[in-house]
């Protein structure tokens, strides 16, 4: 500490230590807040189409478009340390055609969204007018109780599902499941849990009823039905 440079170095060194300890305490404080997520999920319209699902698809294949309704209350996941919440819906089914494909679980994401907390609204991918509206909705609060409450009706999926075999029609035992990923300002990433841990409960429901992917939709069929 005998000259200015050493004092600068020492103070900076201790500052990084203090910053690390404070960040660790902030991350640990999340465990004191209970998590009570809940969701109900159901399909509203399922179609299987034969065509090119992506702009880069080189040949025609069967792909599924699964529209769904989701009512969720994930607001308890937001704390002062939450930067944003990543919510996504997956469709899952298992294939057991042959010995080789037994026990294979297929999972594909059909929809996702990023929900920012008021402290990170400036990072959301929205224009200035929408940002103003979003900030107003939070009404100056740093933790907004309305964030995380989702009510999607007959939501069009973001992504279509394909299978490497190119065939998807008439698949049984498909379910939709909603997941979340809490992204904090400081601390570890956490996902939806399978079991309850202290104050953090696992999501109640959040899985849809089992449904089947129908046969490939034919244009003639729709006309023939006379709709």
């Amino acid at each position, binding site marked *: *500490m*005998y*000259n*200015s*440079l050493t*004092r*600068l170095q*020492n*103070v900076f060194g*201790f*500052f990084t230590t*203090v*910053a690390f*300890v*404070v960040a660790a*305490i*902030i991350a640990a*404080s999340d465990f004191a807040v209970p998590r009570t997520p809940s969701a109900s999920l159901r399909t509203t319209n399922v179609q299987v189409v034969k065509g090119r699902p992506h702009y880069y698809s080189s040949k025609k294949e069967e792909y599924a478009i699964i529209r769904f309704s989701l009512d969720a209350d994930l607001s308890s996941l937001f*704390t*002062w*340390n939450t930067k944003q919440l990543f919510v996504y819906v997956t469709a899952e089914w298992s294939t057991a055609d042959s010995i080789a494909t037994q026990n294979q679980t297929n999972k594909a994401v059909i929809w996702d969204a990023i929900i920012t907390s008021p*402290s990170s609204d400036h990072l959301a991918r929205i224009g200035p007018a929408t940002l103003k509206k979003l900030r107003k909705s939070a009404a100056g609060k*740093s*933790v907004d109780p309305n964030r995380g409450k989702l009510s999607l009706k007959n939501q069009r999926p973001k992504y279509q599902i394909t299978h490497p075999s190119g065939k998807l029609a008439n698949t049984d035992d498909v379910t939709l499941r909603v997941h979340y990923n809490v992204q904090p*300002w400081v601390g570890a990433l956490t996902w939806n849990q399978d079991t309850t841990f202290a104050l953090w409960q696992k999501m109640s429901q959040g899985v849809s009823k089992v449904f089947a992917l129908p046969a490939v939709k034919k244009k003639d069929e729709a006309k023939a039905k006379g709709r």
Partner: protein
Amino acid sequence: MADQLLEQAREVVDGQIDFHGQRLAELLATVLLSVVGAVSFLVGYALQDIELALKIGLGGTALTFLAIVPPWPFYNQHPVQWLPVGGPSISSSHQDIIVDEKMLAA
């Protein structure tokens, strides 16, 4: 002349302080930064605002730098009293130098 200017500049940038000042600087740095850390967490937690916690933390740290790094006068209140050059008396004839059990002339 340039040498003298350079020497002055070097002294300012160097910022040497005496030993008591160094002890005070170390103590002050530890206490200030610990308090800043505690306050930033407690205020942020009470108001549930992490942005505020960050601002308090960084602002307090900047103040600490300002208080510790420059050689303020209160760090130089106890300058070292150096003895005069050559020892307490000019003649060192009664300082015997003994090497390998043989006395050498001083």
